[in-house]
C-alpha cells in the first residue's frame, strides 16, 4: 500500500463489519458504548487503528476524532502503528517476572531478529513487546501471539513456537 492510497472505509454500507456493528448498537442505551467494539473491528480488519480508522469510527458514532483518539491511546491493546504479522506479547509483570519471564522475552527478541521491544522485524513478520499481566500468572510465562494464548513458555520452547508460524 502506498502512503497516499485513499482510505477504504472498514464499515462500508452493506459490508460485514457494518452489519456486525449495527447488531451491537441495540445492546446499549447509547451508541457511544460500541466504541471499544468498533475499534476492535477496525483492528481486526486492518491490523491496527489508524487516524483514518479513528475518524471513520468517530463519524459513525457521532463522536469527534480527537475524542476517539483519547480513548484509543488509553487502551494498550489498540495498535496505533502497523505491527508485524505475528504480534508477540510476553507477560513480564512481577509474578511472571520472578519465574524468568524476562528471559523468555529476550529469547523471542533473539529468535525473531527484532532485537528491540516494539520494533518490527525487517521482514515484517514479528513484533515483540513486554505486556503487563496477561492474567495467567500460574502458567508463567504466558505469551500471546496474535489471538493465541500460550501458557508456560520457557526460553527453550521459543524456537519451536516460532517454527510453527508460517
Amino acid at each position, binding site marked *: 500500500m502506498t502512503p497516499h492510497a485513499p482510505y477504504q472505509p472498514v464499515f462500508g454500507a452493506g459490508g460485514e463489519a457494518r452489519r456486525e456493528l449495527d447488531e451491537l448498537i441495540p445492546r446499549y442505551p447509547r451508541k457511544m458504548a460500541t466504541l471499544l467494539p468498533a475499534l476492535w473491528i477496525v483492528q481486526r480488519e486492518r491490523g491496527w487503528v489508524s*487516524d483514518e480508522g*479513528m*475518524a471513520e469510527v468517530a463519524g459513525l458514532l457521532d*463522536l*469527534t*476524532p*480527537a*475524542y*476517539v*483518539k*483519547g480513548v484509543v*491511546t*488509553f487502551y494498550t491493546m489498540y495498535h496505533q502503528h502497523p505491527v508485524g504479522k505475528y504480534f508477540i506479547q510476553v507477560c513480564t509483570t512481577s509474578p511472571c517476572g520472578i519465574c524468568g519471564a524476562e528471559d523468555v522475552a529476550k529469547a523471542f527478541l533473539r529468535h525473531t531478529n527484532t532485537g528491540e521491544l516494539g520494533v518490527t522485524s525487517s521482514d515484517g513478520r514479528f513484533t515483540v513487546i513486554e505486556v503487563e499481566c496477561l492474567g495467567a500468572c500460574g502458567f508463567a510465562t504466558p505469551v500471546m501471539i496474535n489471538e493465541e494464548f500460550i501458557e508456560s513458555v520457557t526460553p527453550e520452547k521459543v524456537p519451536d513456537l516460532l517454527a510453527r508460524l508460517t
Partner: protein
Amino acid sequence: MITLTIEGRQVTVPEGTTILEAAKQVGVLIPHYCYHPGLPVAGVCRMCLVDVEKAPKLAPSCATTVAEGQVVHVHNEKALEARKGVLEMLLINHPLDCPICDQSGECELQDYTYQEGREDSRYREPKRFNPAEDFGGDVVYVPNRCILCTRCVRFMDDLAHDPVLNVSERGDRALIGKFDGKDLTHPWAANVVDLCPVGALLSKDFLNKARAWELDRTASICPNCTQGCNVMMETRENQLVRMRPRANEYVNAFFMCDWGRLNYRWMNEKDRVERPMVRQGGSLAPTSWERAIAAAAATLKGKRTFVAASPMLSNEALFLLTQLMQGGAFRVAEGDEAPLPGIEDLALRRERAANVHGAEALGFTKTRDLLSGLGQGDALVVAGENLTGVDPAALTRASAIVVISSVLPESVANAAVVLPIANFAEEEGTVTNLRGRVQRFTQARQAPGETRPSWLVLGDLLGAIGKQSSFFLPSDVFAKLASTNKAFAGLSYDTLGFKGLPLATAKETGPKAPLAMGAP
C-alpha cells in the same frame, strides 16, 4: 440551608454547595487547579484537599458537598502536608522555566508553591520532555508545563460542544492531545488559555509580549459586538496588549469570543487627530479647545442638525448628541453569529459594535444608508463615524460639517470644525447590550495629544450652544440621561456597579452561570 464551620468561621449556604464554594463566602480560598466554577467538576488535581473532622480521609473540597455541622480545616497540618505533596509532584517533571514563561506572575502553580509548597525538590530522576505544539487558532500547547487539570478539555467538550481536545495516553506519559488536522478553530477556543491555570496553553497573539506584572488592568466592556462581554483591558506602557474576559454571570459567564478578544489593536490606533481644528481659508488649522467649541457652536446654532453617529459611542455621548440634533442615524458592521452553546444566550453577535441597542434606545435610526436622513442645507455632525464607503455626493447636501471623532475621515477634510475625542479604551462611559443591559466601561489608556472624552466635548458644545451647562463627570451625564429617559430611569453609576443592570424596558434575565460566589 446548611450551616458548617470552615477555619473556625461559621457559614450558612444552600444544600448542595461544595465546601470549596462555601469557603469562598467566608474569605477562605482553598487552593485548587482543576476546579473552575464555570466547568463540570473533575476532582482530579487533588489540590483542594481539606480535613473534614470525623471523615476518615481528606476530602476534595471541590467535589464534597457541605453537611450540617461539618467542621472543616483548610490550613491544618494534615491538609497542608497533602497539598505540599501535590505541589511537589506537580513540579517533579515541570521545567521550572518561569523566567521565559508567559504565565509567570499570574501562574497558580507559582502562587501556591510560594504559598504552601516545599522549598526544595527531592526529585533526582530525569524529567520527561514533550515538544511544544501549535494547537491552531490562537493557542500553543507546552506539555512540559501541563498539570493535566483538564479544564481545557472540559471547556471544549461541555461549553464549546466541540471536543477537539483530549487527554491522550496514560500515567505520567499523559498529555493534552488533539487530532491531526482538527485545530482549535472554534470561535470561542481561546478561552482555554485563560482557563489554563499554568503556562501550558498560551496565546500566540500575546506570546512573549509582556510580563504579567508589567500590565495595567482595567475593567471594561468588549466593544466588538452587541453581547457586551465584560473584559479586562490590559495595557503595557499605554498600549493595549491583551483583552481577557471578566466574569459576569448575567452576560458572558467567564468567557469571551476569540474575535472580540483579538480585535483590540484599533484602540491603539496611531493616525489620530490630536488637536482641535477649525477651518481657516482652505485648510484645517489647529486651535484651542475654547475656540474650536465656540466655532462648532456657531456652525450648528440655528441650523437643522443631523448626526451620523458610531454605535461604538457611549450612552453618554449619544445622549448628548441627541440634545443637539434634529435627526440622527448610525450603521453597524456585520459578521456571522457564533454562539458558545454551553452558555445560554451567549454569542459573538452579528452586529459588531458595543452600543447598537443604546443608540436605538436613544433615538438613532439604524440604517445602511447613513446619510439618507441628511436634508439639504442641514448641518452634519460626524460623531465617531469613519464614513467609509459613504457616497461623497451625499455629503454635499450638508451646509457645514462638524467632526467629533478620534480619526479624521478623508471625505470630510472640508469640515468646518474638528473636535478630537477619546476612543473606547480612553474614556469612561456606559453601553447597552443587545438584551438591554447597561454596563460601565472605564479608561484603560491615556488619550493622545489634546484629545478629550466625548462626553466632555459634547457637554461643552451643548453649553456653548446654550442648551445645557457642562458636566463634570460622565456620571453627571448619565444622571441626566436617567432623569430624562424612561428606559434609563432609576439607573446610576453607583447602582450599575461593574456588572451592570438592565434598562427598565428590558426583560429581566437570571444568571446563566453558577457565579454567585464570585470569580474563579
